[in-house]
């Protein structure tokens, strides 16, 4: 069964009502029983008083004839007799000497000829012949007579039950009506939720404006706010994605334009050397677009941020690998790449991403550095972090451009190298991934650019 607020509220409210009613009913029943008993007691005492004052002859007649003290109920049918036991009142009147002046003969059968209660002027409950009896004994001082009255007790509980039934009957009728009213009230109260879900359901996929529900009740407001917050975030992220896609398409056009132009040059020239050169440039253009596509894919994958398995990595060994793999490009520009290791630094990272990060940094330093310049890869350790720095002595980056270096497709104006404008975005993303920090500084000897990344240490000494 599906959990619905309506059903739960219904059950809770009705159960509460039923519980309170039951308690009321039970207490009313006892109240009624008590009332009935008091009234019966008074009646018994009055009968006893009458019998005490009765004539001896009358008593003799009475003892022969059964008499019903309670009489018939006026409605005649509201008291349903559930038992066949005699309703009759049994009595015995004695004079001052203990002589029986009149008595119901049944007393002999009940083995109660001599008054078993022995308590005067009060009601008592007795078990006679396996049945409960109410008895009342009255001793009249003036005549010296004693009247003893007995009545079957179950007749009295019938009366109490009847009273209780009368009280509970309207409650039983009221319950379905109450249930209906509760149902309607809950429906009415849940209406704002219905409006909200309709507002969400009827939306187009692209429609991400905040939901306008000014009249929403206080309880629904947080839900609307939460949904709106989500919508705003979603819209921002979609906007960012679109901007990225459009930038990416834009960036891909440049190498494509180059490939097309070079291919057309190759097609139209009759000069074999020129043709060869153009075809070489076509290949170069394809390489460049492939590189760009790789970078884009990498960024997309990093954005998905599936958790990757990390391990403890020694920075120096990764740095050495990367320096070696970039040696060719460095040699071509006459740039010397040096690895400076001050300490053994172990960090928790993912090896492939670490390589990509370092590769991008060293590649950038070589690409944008001056011919015949110097690039340093420094691995150092501070008290709290493992530091990795790649710096060059090239033209550097102006302070106002440094803040934009990690923006996607941002390229410093004036640089002549064929970058994708994504390298540092990727670095920044990986840095974020590793929970590290990225800082730009001035490079070697007050020139160039230094990129410093501080990693949390894998073997950090526990805080003292």
């Amino acid at each position, binding site marked *: 069964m599906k959990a619905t607020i309506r059903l739960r509220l219904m059950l809770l409210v009705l159960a509460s009502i039923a519980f309170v009613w039951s308690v009321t009913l039970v207490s009313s029943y006892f109240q009624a029983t008590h009332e009935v008993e008091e009234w019966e007691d008074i009646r018994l005492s009055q009968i006893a008083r009458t019998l005490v004052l009765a004539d001896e002859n009358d008593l003799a007649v009475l003892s022969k004839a059964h008499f019903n003290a309670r009489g018939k109920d006026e409605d005649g049918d509201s008291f349903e007799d559930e038992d066949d036991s005699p309703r009759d009142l049994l009595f015995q009147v004695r004079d001052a000497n203990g002589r029986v002046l009149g008595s119901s003969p049944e007393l002999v059968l009940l083995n109660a000829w001599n008054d078993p209660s022995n308590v005067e002027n009060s009601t008592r409950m007795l078990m006679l012949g396996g049945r409960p009896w109410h008895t009342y004994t009255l001793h009249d001082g003036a005549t010296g007579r004693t009247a003893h009255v007995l009545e079957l007790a179950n007749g009295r509980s019938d009366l109490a039950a009847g009273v209780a039934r009368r009280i509970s009957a309207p409650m039983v009728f009221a319950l379905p009506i109450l249930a209906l009213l509760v149902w309607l009230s809950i429906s009415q109260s849940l209406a704002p939720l219905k409006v909200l879900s309709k507002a969400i359901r009827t939306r187009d996929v692209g429609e991400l404006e905040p939901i306008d529900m000014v009249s929403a009740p206080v309880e629904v407001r947080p839900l609307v706010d939460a949904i709106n917050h989500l919508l705003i975030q979603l819209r921002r992220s979609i906007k960012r994605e679109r901007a990225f896609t459009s930038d990416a398409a834009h960036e891909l056009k440049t190498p494509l334009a*180059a490939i*097309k*132009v070079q291919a*057309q040059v190759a097609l*139209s020239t009759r000069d074999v050397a020129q043709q060869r050169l*153009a075809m070489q440039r076509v290949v170069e253009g394809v390489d460049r677009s492939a590189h760009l596509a790789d970078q884009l894919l990498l960024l997309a994958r990093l954005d998905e941020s599936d958790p990757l398995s990390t391990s403890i990595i020694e920075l120096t060994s990764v740095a050495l690998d990367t320096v070696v793999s970039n040696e060719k490009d460095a040699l071509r520009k006459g740039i010397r790449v040096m690895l400076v290791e001050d300490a053994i630094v172990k960090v928790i990272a993912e090896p492939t991403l670490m390589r990509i990060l370092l590769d991008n940094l060293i590649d950038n330093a070589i690409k944008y550095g001056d011919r015949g310049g110097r690039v340093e890869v420094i691995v150092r350790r501070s008290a709290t972090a493992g530091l990795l720095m790649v710096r060059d002595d090239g033209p550097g980056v102006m302070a106002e451009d440094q803040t934009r270096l990690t923006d996607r497709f941002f390229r410093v104006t004036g640089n*002549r190298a064929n970058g994708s404008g994504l390298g540092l975005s990727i670095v920044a993303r990986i840095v974020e991934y590793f929970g590290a920090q990225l800082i730009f500084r001035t490079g070697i000897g007050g020139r160039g650019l230094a990129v410093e990344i501080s990693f949390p240490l894998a073997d950090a000494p526990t805080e003292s």
Partner: protein
Amino acid sequence: MRVLLVEDDDLIGSGVEAGLHQAGFTVDWAQDGRKANLALTTTTYELIVLDLGLPKMGGRELLKWLRDREKDTPVLVLTASDTVADRVGGLEAGADDYLCKPFDLAELIARCRALLRRAQGRSVEVIRHGSLTVDRETQSVMRDDERIPLTARELTVLIQLLTHQGIPQSRSRLEESLYGWQEEIESNAVEVHISNLRKKLGTNLIRTVRGIGYVVEKTS
């Protein structure tokens, strides 16, 4: 026909340069705005092919600088962004035509020629002068029905003179139209080309203006 190509991308630049060269243009290739600026202050160009996304001095800035100096050299703009706003912005800044990357080399050359024709007040690629017909597209010269073989340089000099009929062209102006930045200028080259042209086309087509240069008179 000297053209200034302003393009920062190595591959596109070299391709366009080669393509324009094949089509008979003399091409100077500047890789940033500042170099282009310098070239424009020292040399007269018939046409500028300009990439808008340039380092150092933006393409739009360069265009504005050019138009502020009342130079009405036709400008063909190349750009990777093909939004309407970009196109309108480029044209408003003073561009004469627009091509989006990736473009077709043949279209680029055709548009360059069209811009030059418009600048010279012509509507076809064929220049006629008396019985002489020069087709720039096929780079052929005909007198009546007879085809006259000319070298590329001779053709360039002839076209320079024919597109400026009645206006004497100095030796240095003719040299400018012949040689790009990378090319060595041979001394006496212009004289040699003029002499060859006179041999092939007759002595009275090109007249020497003493102390100034050479001219082809307008046909009445």
